């Protein structure tokens, strides 16, 4: 159901200055000039934020709700935004929104979320591609196959992969978004690509 996991935005509408004016909106945000600045700064990234939400949640309806909640929260916290890059800042907010959605899914009986083994990040990388013949070269895959392979990557590898390959963030920016050291970003990205490469090759072995 759209909107059912969005209590935070509603709760925020009861704001600190509620007594000063009898308006049923969030008074701390009731400043057209501030809202205009926010709109000019944040709305141009709507497609980027929506793209990330689609890849993180893999569901169009949930992605829309998450993006709307992200912009609500971003507007609320706009005063604490110090730049320089708006896009990673929005991504970090979106990511927090998405984590709430993961938690909700995990709590529901029909949860469809990746089960990530505890040791997944510690497994040596070479275990992935060791069986691969050195001479084999990746064959090109059609776009829908690429989309499916990327969607099949487990969190948090898909997240890092999408931030790098689709959103073109630097390692430093990714580290800020996912709140992890750059070294972790590097190992997740290496692992994401190694997993994708294995899946890519396995795909080739299946008869069409």
């Amino acid at each position, binding site marked *: 159901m759209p909107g059912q996991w969005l209590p935070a935005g509603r709760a925020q509408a009861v704001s600190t200055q509620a007594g000063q004016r009898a308006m049923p909106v969030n008074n701390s945000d009731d*400043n*057209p*000039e501030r809202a205009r600045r926010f709109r000019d700064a944040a709305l141009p990234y*709507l*497609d980027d934020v*929506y*793209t990330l939400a689609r890849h993180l949640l893999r569901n169009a309806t949930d992605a829309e709700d998450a993006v709307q909640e992200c912009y609500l929260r971003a507007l609320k916290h706009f005063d604490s935004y110090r730049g320089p890059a708006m896009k990673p800042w929005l991504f970090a907010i979106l990511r927090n929104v998405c984590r709430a959605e993961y938690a909700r899914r995990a709590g529901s009986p029909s949860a469809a979320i990746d089960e990530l083994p505890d040791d997944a990040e510690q497994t040596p990388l070479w275990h992935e591609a060791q069986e691969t013949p050195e001479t084999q070269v*990746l064959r090109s895959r059609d776009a829908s196959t690429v989309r499916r392979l990327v969607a099949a990557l487990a969190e948090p590898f898909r997240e890092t992969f999408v931030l790098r390959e689709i959103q073109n963030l630097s390692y430093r920016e990714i580290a800020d978004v996912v709140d992890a050291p750059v070294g972790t970003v*590097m190992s997740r990205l290496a692992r994401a690509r190694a997993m994708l490469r294995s899946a890519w090759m396995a795909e080739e072995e299946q008869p069409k």
Partner: protein
Amino acid sequence: MTCDEAEILLHALIDGELDAGHAREVEAHVAGCPRCAAALADYRAMSKAVAGADLRYTAPAALRQRIEASLPQARAPSRRALLRGFAMGSAVSAIAATGLFAIILRGDDEARIESEVVSAHLRSLQAGHLTDVISTDQHTVKPWFNGRLDVAPPVVDLTAQGFTLIGGRLDYVDARPIGAIVYRRRAHIINLFVAQTASTERHAARIDTIQGFNIRRWSERGLNYWAVSDIASDELAEFGEKFESTMRGSSAG
């Protein structure tokens, strides 16, 4: 360098995150290690394939509208904003201000901006105000805007279509700097005003008439356009259509 080290640093090499010294070390390892060389080639091919697979999504229009509607300034412009607009108009041109006043009383933000655009057009026709940079070369006019605006207004040559590019100008509309690209049709001047918009939605063109001037207004790819001229509305429509189709042609190619 060992394969274990290279396996991580290969990616930093692909992503342009390595300094020159480390990049050389990784490249040296790859040159002597067929397994790492194969991995590097595969990862590069994968990155290319992912980039070509169009994994980007466009936010649905309904979502954009919901978010825009939740922002406070979606309401009518404040009285203060209107007065500011009026003060600016009156300072600029008494004639324009008269028109501006009538339109402001309607409280319509868009009409106010259109009226300011007409004022700017009138202003530009006064001696010596038409162009800040005079050139029939789009590659001279476009870079001139760099650093003067927070957007790069598209400058296209429409000489072959009967509209001669004569230059560019920095103008002020809605109390903000705006790019104006100036074209000529026979003896008539067309000012094409370009400003950034927060919305990346495409708005189909609309033609209005204010104070005897025709305005063709449209939006595309995060930019608002107003073409203003005293040429007939069908000629102005033709100008807009040719501009739009040339823009589409240049971005597709």
